[in-house]
């Protein structure tokens, strides 16, 4: 089930056009345009301070761009953070951002806010619809956990679990709302080599859920192996776009990363 409208088939799931963000005199993003076609995995790379997370925060409504537009499925939107899931956009946070005091299942159910239909008063008086929705949400969350192979941890507190499992929980919380666009912020951070490979497989499987992916990541190997296309940022400017092969062959990219003249 998709809770969001699917626009014209030709429109990209997400289109950022000429996004500029200025903090006082500093230009964090300078007229950046990125497109995420339906069913694709798009990577955003760049050295520290290149503006990757700023770009994410623009999409999530944390920052308002100084200029530029954002459209989802061909419709221009400017969502606020807590209304993202209504537009079919879900996000994971750098460093997990799980709710430590609550079991894994509760963490995942929390991702289903946008499918809450019952009112505050129905909940106050514990009317049937509120109770039924709670049951349905828990079932959906269990199904999402199962699809990631971590359903046996449903009752555990996140802090008692290994980091790789917690990472999956945070991805489950984002996927449970069945988004059409998933933003992954540094998902490989803190993971070991084998775990990163497993994560890569997981990311590749997400388009199969009718969901496009935007990946901000430091880990170059991961980005190169999972992405259909890559955008490279440096000092707030888009310096290269293309397939992994094109980008890795681009001298400007090598220079930005290694600080040397590739020639």
């Amino acid at each position, binding site marked *: 089930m998709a809770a969001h409208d699917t626009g014209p088939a030709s429109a990209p799931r997400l289109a950022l056009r000429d996004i500029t963000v200025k903090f006082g005199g500093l230009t964090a993003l300078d007229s950046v345009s990125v497109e995420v076609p339906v069913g694709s995995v798009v990577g955003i790379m760049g050295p520290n301070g290149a503006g990757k997370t700023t770009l994410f925060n623009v999409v*999530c409504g944390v920052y308002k761009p100084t200029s530029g537009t954002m459209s989802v499925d061909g419709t221009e939107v400017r969502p606020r*953070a*807590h*209304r*993202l*899931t*209504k537009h079919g956009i*879900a*996000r994971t*946070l750098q460093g997990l*951002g*799980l*709710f*430590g*005091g*609550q079991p894994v299942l*509760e963490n995942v*159910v*929390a*991702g*289903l*806010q*946008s499918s*809450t239909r*019952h009112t*505050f008063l129905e*909940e*106050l*008086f*514990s009317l049937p619809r*509120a109770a039924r*929705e*709670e049951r349905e*949400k828990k079932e959906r969350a269990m199904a999402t956990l199962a699809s990631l192979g971590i359903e*046996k*941890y449903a*009752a*555990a507190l996140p802090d*008692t*679990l*290994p980091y790789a*499992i917690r990472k999956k929980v945070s991805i489950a*919380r984002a996927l449970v*709302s069945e988004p059409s666009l998933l933003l992954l912020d540094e998902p490989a951070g803190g993971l070991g080599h084998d775990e990163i490979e497993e994560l890569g497989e997981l990311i590749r499987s997400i388009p199969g859920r009718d969901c496009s992916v935007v990946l901000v990541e430091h880990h170059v190997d991961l980005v190169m192996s999972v992405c259909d296309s890559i955008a490279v940022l440096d000092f707030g400017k888009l310096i290269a776009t293309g397939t992994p092969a094109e980008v890795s062959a681009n001298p400007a990219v090598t220079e930005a990363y290694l600080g040397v003249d590739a020639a």
Partner: protein
Amino acid sequence: MSSRTTLIVGLVGLVAVIGLTFVLDPYRNYQLATIAAYLCVVAGLTMLTGVNGQLSLGHAALAACGAYCYAFTANGLAEQEVTGPVLLILPILAAVAGAAVLGLIVGLAAARLHGPYLAGVTLALVLALPAITSRFSDVFNGDQGLYISVERRPEFLAGRGGTEMFQAWVAIACAALVVILLRNLMKGNFGRQMRAVRDNEVAAAIAGVNVARTKVIAFTVSSAAAGAGGAVLAFMTQSASPGAFSLVFSLFLLMAAVIGGIGTLYGALWGSILLVVLPDAIGSLTKSLSLSPEVAQRLDGNLAVGLFGAIMVLVVIVAPLGIQGLLRKGRLKMQSRGTPQSVPVPK
């Protein structure tokens, strides 16, 4: 605990407590009613502070708001010569509504503040109370407070338990209603939103929780519960005065929530019982020690504050989840001794 067990435990408890009112003497019934009144306030406070993470030092003032709203409404109705259940129920509803409105206003400010800053605002609220009542003395009658015309006990009770028994019934009914409604919220999606906001505001917002709205509603609901508690206290004492809702009372409420087990309604119950029983026990202890009148006078009241503070420090160090946390731990230990449970322990 499954919701059916909770329901059964709650109903049995309710019946047992009402049955208790028939055997207790009037003084004990009055204490029982006081516990129920405190429970309304502490339950609201434990939801706000424990579940939503908003610290309030001002719940006494919100209860006071309830008490004054009760007083104005009850006296107004009595002037119109209204009697019967209306004279009881309408003032209580007015108290809940009045405290909720004040809570909404404070909550709107609170949504922008964290930790010590929020504590400061709520502290100002409770400190301002005596100043407001004496500044607008013609309305609030200063430190003296207001006398309230209350609904008398029903006639059929005249020969039995008397006024105190009736007071206990009203108080228990209010507390039961408050606890049931708060429980519904805490175990439902709103509870999830409150906990998410407490644990991580950014993650909560990204999951789709409107953080500011959640905080404001939590503060409003918590204030409404405090208002109900204030109304019951006003009904019992037939008065509303600033002295009854002091800063010390406010701190006692918070200590009760923490010692009982912050964030749980059972904890609020244990804390409220302690709040009534402990000073009483200390009183009889000092009496039995046959101290000189001077020492006894000095200890009176102060000893309870000191002891409560000491217990709270002890609880925070030894059992941060309070009495309810200890009880839960004990129960889990008993269960695991019976049947070995498979807890998922990943390698």
